């Protein structure tokens, strides 16, 4: 009898295996372990049947409020978007999901071709030459991009725009403690003036508050100073905005979660990293290349592996080994299903709704869009000061908080729209906000 529900071993099997080894019990195989360190309890509760564990997990999940439960305007690097039914049913097939890194290409062509297609789709979207097979998520992709720039230029100063997602900046600062990089943070408008001696200028477009940024002069300033331009961007935005490669960016990174991957409370996600051809040997992580087999049939393999840790060890471009391959395959399925038209529709639908929302909310006394610059599908809303968040939450409406690192936008909400934002959602937010503001005036009169 097994305590492990997934064990195939009968007592007779175990006895036969022990006999073949020539020992009496598994304990006889553990003699290398110091006896005083053996067999301590772990404090894990007793096991459950599949039915029991399903009830237990369902009960825990029920203690959360899913984003789809009400109007939802929280966004930023992670976005609630429509996931076509075919995406999980294809990408999560057991043949993809339960394979590992394609070390044996003859029996891994499914993974390898799907990843090569992912690389190609990202290159088309970003108008760049090379994309790798994935990083962990957006923040670490940015840190790795900065490391690439440091290696390519031999400089240790990295200049990042304040209007970058703060989670990405935090991750960059953490990583920078490793090789002792100098991280300088300045407003986007001052990036160009800080290019001297920099390894790279990091600009986000659209920025953390959704604003559109003129990237070209920043890229030009970087190049004039011998620095690289790293653009943080978003995959859907690139369907309707001029892409990084056309704006002069040498490296582009993005959080790939919006490409058909569930929000799943923080991960697993998809770090997208793409660059111009001359930087390919500085790239971290796996890259799939096209080749042929001994009969001349097209095939795909992991390539340029002399950059990687399993070959180069301490001289590798990165320590990354396990990546987010299934998320990359998911993104390839998503992009294949939506096509150029579907991706543009999703991007422009979100933009349309964001502008409708801005117009509607601006009609509420005391509310206004917090900045002048054009935006795409998210913006900062300035409201009269006070704690409106709880009032909205009481109505089942979730909005984003203002920008942590921008005092100008501290007392604002960041409101994200996508193709899932309905006209009813917009009206519900407007009514709830109006009520909350009106309600707050009540006690003053009373």
């Amino acid at each position, binding site marked *: 009898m097994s305590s492990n529900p997934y064990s195939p071993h009968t007592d007779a099997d175990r006895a036969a295996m022990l006999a073949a080894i020539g020992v009496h019990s598994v304990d006889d195989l553990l003699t290398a372990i110091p006896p005083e360190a053996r067999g301590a309890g772990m404090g894990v509760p007793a096991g459950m049947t599949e039915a029991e564990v399903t009830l237990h997990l369902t009960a825990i999940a029920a203690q959360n409020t899913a984003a789809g439960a009400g109007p939802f305007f929280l966004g930023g690097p992670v976005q609630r978007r429509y996931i076509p039914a075919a995406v999980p049913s294809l990408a999560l097939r057991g043949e993809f999901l339960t394979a590992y890194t394609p070390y044996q290409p003859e029996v891994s062509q499914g993974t390898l071709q799907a990843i090569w297609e992912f690389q190609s789709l990202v290159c088309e979207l970003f108008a760049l030459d090379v994309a790798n097979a994935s990083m962990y998520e957006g923040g670490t992709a940015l840190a790795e991009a900065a490391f690439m720039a440091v290696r390519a230029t031999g400089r240790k100063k990295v200049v990042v725009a304040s209007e970058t997602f703060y989670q990405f900046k935090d991750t960059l600062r953490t990583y920078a403690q490793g090789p002792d990089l100098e991280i300088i943070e300045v407003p986007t408008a001052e990036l160009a003036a800080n290019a001297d001696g920099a390894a790279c200028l990091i600009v986000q477009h659209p920025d953390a508050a959704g604003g559109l940024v003129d990237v070209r002069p920043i890229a030009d300033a970087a190049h004039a100073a011998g620095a690289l331009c790293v653009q943080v961007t978003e995959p859907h935005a690139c369907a*309707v905005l001029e892409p990084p490669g056309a704006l002069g960016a040498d490296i582009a990174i993005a959080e790939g979660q919006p490409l058909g991957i569930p929000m799943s409370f923080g991960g697993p996600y998809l770090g997208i990293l793409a660059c111009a051809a001359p930087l390919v040997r500085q790239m971290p992580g796996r890259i799939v290349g096209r080749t042929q087999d001994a009969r001349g049939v*097209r095939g795909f393999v992991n390539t340029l592996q002399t950059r990687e840790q399993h070959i180069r*060890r301490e001289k590798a471009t990165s320590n990354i080994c396990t990546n987010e391959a299934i*998320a990359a395959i998911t993104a390839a399925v998503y992009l*294949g299903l939506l096509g150029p038209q579907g991706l543009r529709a999703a991007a422009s639908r979100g933009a349309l709704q964001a502008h409708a929302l801005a117009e509607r909310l601006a009609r509420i006394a005391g509310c206004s869009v917090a900045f002048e610059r054009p935006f795409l599908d998210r913006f900062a809303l300035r409201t009269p000061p006070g704690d409106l968040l709880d009032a909205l939450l009481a109505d089942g409406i979730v909005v984003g908080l203002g920008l942590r690192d921008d005092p100008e936008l501290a007392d604002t909400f960041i409101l994200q729209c996508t193709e899932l934002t309905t006209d009813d959602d917009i009206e519900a937010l407007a009514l709830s906000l109006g009520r909350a503001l009106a309600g707050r005036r009540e006690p003053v009169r009373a």
Partner: protein
Amino acid sequence: MRTQVVPDVGAKTESPALEPLLFELHREGRSGRHIRDAATDVVPVAFARKVPLGLPELSELQVVRHFTHLSQLNYAVDTGFYPLGSCTMKYNPKVNDRAAFLPGFADLHPQQPDETIQGALRLMVELQEMLAGITGMDSVTLQPAAGAHAEFTAILMFKAYHHARGDRKRRRVIVPDSAHGTNPASAAMCGFDVTTVRSDERGNIDIKALEDTLGDDVVGLMLTNPNTLGLFEERVREVCAAVHKVGGLVYGDGANMNALMGVARPGDLGLDCVHINLHKTFSTPHGAGGPGAGPLCVRAPLEPYLPSPRVKRNADGSFARSLDHPQSVGRVRSFLGSFGVLVRAYTYMRSLGEEGLTEASRDAILAANYLLSRVRSKYEVAYDRTCMHEFVLSAAKQKKQGASALDIAKALIDEGFHPPTVYFPLIVAESMMIEPTETEPKETLDAFADALLRIAERIEKEPEKVREAPLRAPLRRLDEVGAARKPVLRYRR
């Protein structure tokens, strides 16, 4: 795995191919209807995309067939035995996947207010508590996305720990010659030099060589135990004590934790921290290369330096994120962790419980030793000791007879198996690292052993035939040199 010819779908491929590319299936004007077009254009002209968007246009059925065909070209745990050493390719229970996709988990934004994510935070706190108990450590971060990410996190924490004590002279991280490549790479990313220490004749870290190189410039040691030879470090306590004596810290690479659940806790062996690969030991699917998750478990002295934000249980029984950790190294990723992976691992732990987890490790050790006993007559054993959950053979004898470890790997493909890890660890010539895991029935182990023995016999008689393998896979051997010499890394029209 599919080896038959794909029906001709009329796609023009640039050369003979198993499956056309998405791009080769494209026809202008073809599209699905997943999302309603926005009638008006809201992007200012100055910012609008002018570069053509060359994504393929396809019908949904074309996409479904394409990725179904591709999936059929893969070998996976769901399709067969996958004894890839050091990767713990055990069965990935389906109930774990279903739990991760419950709307209350999958449809949660990471920035939602605490009161709307109590279940998620509770699951994370309970997972942290279980991992601490399993490893014998005090505190846990769930942020790292993979083992290598945890290594980087830990070495950054070591740096912060030493600096907080005013100790800035430490520059070297010690790594055994049997270590995974990620270990030295992680140390280098933290700005440190790497000193490699050799293994002794029993496959342990050479303690004399270690002591010779230890000094007050040592940040710490990165130790995999059981090591990549599948052997338990017999003098692990002495090793840890020696490093501690010079003020260094010991990092545990937990890649091989599948041997240790309920068997021995790294914290009781003297290590200062250990990472756990949830995608190995705790059964979450490897996803064709990822995601994984690499929680890092640490002893109390390292706790102040753990990544922030953290997840905690409040005195009133509720759960919260906490940011007030002034000595923290900071965020190592944007959000709290690869939550979908954490849900799967949690489900697995609760399914097996204390007894089931212990049995899993003991069965993994039993299976490896059994398989070793079945094949040792024909293959050299690198270090001939009782192994833990995996073992390393050398095909040096077969290489002399005319077929290498790579040839044996390809011959195994023709036998219907995924090959073991080959050419790692680097210290064993023609190495083949075999990890059967606890979820393969004895019949499968026997069939695999028979295949290995059969291949060894074929090599004795006709090695040139073995060098032609694989003949029964979707493709013959691929030109990897050509791929690297003239890289073609994306489709171009």
